[in-house]
């Protein structure tokens, strides 16, 4: 059952060194308040799973500003010079993954699958150390599932039960990550009474949500 908690209380549950997946694409659709609180509580050594490193001062970029990340799984970090510097200085261990494989690995993790077979990356550096599996004569890479201890998700609407909807391009990885972590913590632009979100419009059903951060 979803529980409404303060942002301080929620982040206090995340230990230093935890694996954390964070929704958002270039900081759009990212739970900024949870990131601010991770910085305030100085949760170091995080194993971060996020599409990109955003930009300094925005989204997960704040975690790199505060050097809280020791391991990153992402698809693109080109717009955050701090993340690049920390990678080149070997301060963070980075695993770069094609974006389609990244989202499918997380989807697999949330859906009880061991992984997915994708043509993406066959014959490139991405295939190094991975199993190549032929299906009907075509080569595919086995990309294994990804899960995390915590998923930090940002929704547009959350109702009192924890049903979620998302807005425009802020949906991105959020509903996929809400399936793939032991503990799911959500911030929402608006918290609304049950019934405001029609059943057909619910994207993440309430039982997936563990904690909703109270607004105001």
């Amino acid at each position, binding site marked *: 059952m979803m529980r409404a908690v303060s942002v301080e209380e929620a982040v206090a549950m995340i230990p230093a060194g935890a694996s954390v997946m964070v929704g958002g*694409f*270039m*900081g*759009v*659709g990212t739970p900024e308040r949870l990131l601010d609180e991770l910085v305030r509580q100085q949760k170091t050594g995080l194993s971060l799973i996020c*599409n*990109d490193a*955003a*930009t300094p001062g925005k989204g997960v970029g704040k975690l790199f500003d505060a050097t809280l990340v020791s391991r990153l799984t*992402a*698809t*693109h*970090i*080109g*717009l955050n010079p701090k993340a*690049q510097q920390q*990678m080149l200085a070997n301060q963070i261990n980075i695993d*770069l993954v*094609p*974006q*389609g*494989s990244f*989202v*499918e690995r997380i*989807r697999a993790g949330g859906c009880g699958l061991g992984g997915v077979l*994708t*043509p*993406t*990356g*066959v*014959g*490139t*550096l*991405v295939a190094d150390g991975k199993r190549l599996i032929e299906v009907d004569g075509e080569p595919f890479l086995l990309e294994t599932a990804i899960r995390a201890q915590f998923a930090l998700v940002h929704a*547009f609407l959350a109702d009192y039960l924890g049903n979620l909807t*998302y*807005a*425009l*391009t*802020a*949906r*991105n*990885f*959020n*509903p*996929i990550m809400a399936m793939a972590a032991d503990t799911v913590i959500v911030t929402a632009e608006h918290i609304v009474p049950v019934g405001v979100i029609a059943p057909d419009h619910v*994207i993440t059903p309430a039982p997936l949500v563990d904690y909703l951060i109270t607004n105001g």
Partner: protein
Amino acid sequence: MDPQIIIARRVAQELKSGNLVNLGIGIPTLVANYVPADLKVFFQSENGLIGTGPIPEQGMAHPLLTDAGGRPISALPGAATFDSAMSFGLIRGGHVDVTVLGGLQVDAHGRLANWMIPGKMVPGMGGAMDLVSGAKRVIVAMQHAAKGKPKIVKKCNLPLTSARPVHLVVTDMAVIGFADGKATLLETAPGISVAEVMAVTEAELVVPDDIPEMKI
């Protein structure tokens, strides 16, 4: 004419009514400016939108409606938003008719390298590997040479984006196709001779008897 505009205008001619099109960053983004107004093309932004519209007017931007670089965009009537699993399902699943991408190198068989320069620039591949692996038609839009150095080479010395060859390369000097797995000169830019193209092309080019001039 500006070399980038030559490329963008020529690539725009490849788009057909009803096409679902994904444009990469850089020169490919300019292609949208040269699509005839009566041609109904759907542009996808891989962060979760079909129906991207122009940059909104001052004061009309929405923070949750952005392109894949995180910049504000608008959505056209009939637009649709979705999560990243859907977005890359569209890409990898062959539902995107045309993708236009920038390039660092293309080899004699049409294989593209565009995602990293080892030791110098390691931004990550983002969605590029999925786009080249999955789009029905892959067009590379790039300058023919970088400071006189050929970009269409015998063999890429930069890491490949995909083992799957691209379909067409459009440069400021020429249009090159890869039917039968061989780089073939299809058109030259206005005022550019076949000999001038050959002089800055390292890959062996098949040169048919009749090479029309680009109609731009």
